[in-house]
């Protein structure tokens, strides 16, 4: 006789409800931005784009416990391909975005093979180098990227004559994309594939001993993460209509890590919650842009020391010891 696990132990019910809190928080924030529109909508839109990126980062770093300081490279590839193809070559946004994602995944496959064999600080520095090389190329390859000037006049998303130009339209579109990403992450987590990633995270030796091809799963998580990054990069350029090298610079690395740790690394809701909180906090201070990165850096250090599992882990149904 089998009993459904949800009713075997009564104390599990409140846990389930607590698990919904992060989503409720996100829904309230997005709903508010939808009603107010204007600047609030812009800020929340950026947060949602970051959420896509951080969701991908989390697959690689949270689920599989690998290290990459260079995922901004893939956002840059996705973003610039979208920008160049649409603004300079008249492509429609959707095929440009798909090509951008494909290109980023392809590049990730090429650099991933040698890079993922590295360990520890070699891997950290190797991936950081890949991010910086991409940045330098976006600066220097002026005939295509227009250097520091950046590319403007990038069309908004749309299919045929229908374009998403309004704040609210963009918010709805981005919310759908983020929901799809979170759904994908949740499904991956509870699957054979996701369990293999957790195994790689837990003990590579034990994973190997159980027949899991560790190198292959690391690479797959890396490709997946690169795909999310490219999607975020492409979303950014079409929502803003402009791209420059600074968008995908070292700033992005620090901001996204802060988001990942604020929200809770390894959780499904963490990336979204982290992206929203980290994007909104400076705004509530009405703050000066100069202090932003300073605050991100300081918050990140404090979190790493005092709450290495992030805020969403407080709501996570599976308590960590």
């Amino acid at each position: 006789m089998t009993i459904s696990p949800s009713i075997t132990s009564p104390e599990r019910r409140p846990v389930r409800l607590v698990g919904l809190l992060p989503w409720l928080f996100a829904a309230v924030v997005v709903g508010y931005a939808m009603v107010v529109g204007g600047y609030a909508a812009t800020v929340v839109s950026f947060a949602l784009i970051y959420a896509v990126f951080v969701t991908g980062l989390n697959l690689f770093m949270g689920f599989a416990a690998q290290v990459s300081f260079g995922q901004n490279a893939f956002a840059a590839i996705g973003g610039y391909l979208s920008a160049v193809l649409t603004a300079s070559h008249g492509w429609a946004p959707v095929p440009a975005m798909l090509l951008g994602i494909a290109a980023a995944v392809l590049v990730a496959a090429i650099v991933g093979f040698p890079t993922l064999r590295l360990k520890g600080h070699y891997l950290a520095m190797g991936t950081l180098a890949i991010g910086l090389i991409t940045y330098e190329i976006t600066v220097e390859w002026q005939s295509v990227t227009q250097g520091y000037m950046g590319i403007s006049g990038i069309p908004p998303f749309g299919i045929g004559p229908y374009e998403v130009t309004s704040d609210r339209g963009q918010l709805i579109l981005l919310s759908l994309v983020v929901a799809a990403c979170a759904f994908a992450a949740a499904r991956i987590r509870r699957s054979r594939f996701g369990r293999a990633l957790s195994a790689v995270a837990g003990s590579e030796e034990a994973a190997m001993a159980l027949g899991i091809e560790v190198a292959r799963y690391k690479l797959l998580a890396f490709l997946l993460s690169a795909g999310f990054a490219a999607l975020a990069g492409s979303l950014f350029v079409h929502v803003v209509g402009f791209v420059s090298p600074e968008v995908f610079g070292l700033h992005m690395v620090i901001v996204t890590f802060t988001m990942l740790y604020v929200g809770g690394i390894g959780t499904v809701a963490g990336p979204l919650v982290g992206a929203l909180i980290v994007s909104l906090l400076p705004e509530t201070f009405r703050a000066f842009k100069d202090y932003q990165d300073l605050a991100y850096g300081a918050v990140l250090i404090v979190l790493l020391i005092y709450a290495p599992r992030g805020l969403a882990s407080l709501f996570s149904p599976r308590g960590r010891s």
Partner: protein
Amino acid sequence: MTRLRLEGVTRRFGGLVAVDDVSFDVPAEGVTAVIGPNGAGKTTLFNLISGFLPPSAGRITFEGRDITGRPPAEIAAGGLVRTFQLVKLFEDLSVLDNVKVGCHLRGKAGLFAALLRPASARREEQAVEARSRELLAFAGLAAMADEPASALPYGRQRMLELARAMAAGPRLILLDEPAAGLNTEESAALSRIIRRIAEDGTSVLLIEHDMTLVMNTADRVVVVDFGRKIAQGTPAQVRADPAVIAAYLGTGKPSADKPAVQEAPHG
């Protein structure tokens, strides 16, 4: 029928010969034990068999196929699964999920199955769930299925590692000191479980210091000392073998030969 055959297997570390020209067969039936004093090269031998170290010389065949120096995941996929002397659980996962990871080789769902969840993937997942719960019950862990693995007491962690390895459906399971750190009662329970695994058709090869466990559980014993095989036979034969007695006299009585100092993990 021979399940595993070692022919002249040797492993050198620099000038040190950790495993020196060792040959023996592991038959399909029953439990085979490798014993020997601390530092005799038993764990190195296991690492060679399971692919974690390539041998310097010699040949290892599993069910007639040459597996010498193949990668660990491939050897596991071929039906030869090991456990570790220092338990290596996935501590952040629940007890149940640990065993589900063990089912990895029995499934084939990939990334797209994870995202789209077609009917075949759902069926596979149900089978994994059922088999994992069955194995937890077998290992006496059914009540703790949803606990994080790190919350289990040590003895239970060992049982979990065993259940997880069995989930892979091996035809030969290598157990690296499964009784290390267990009390007498737990050790006796472990002995029964190992016998049952063998009776259900999985060959067992174990390394052990706990002589009571070996004498009660093993059908055949291989004795190594200084990396060389010095004796082989039934537990009774081995116990009476002068070479074995001599080897153990240097390090104390066999029954008292609990490892006082664990070999420190490297790194």
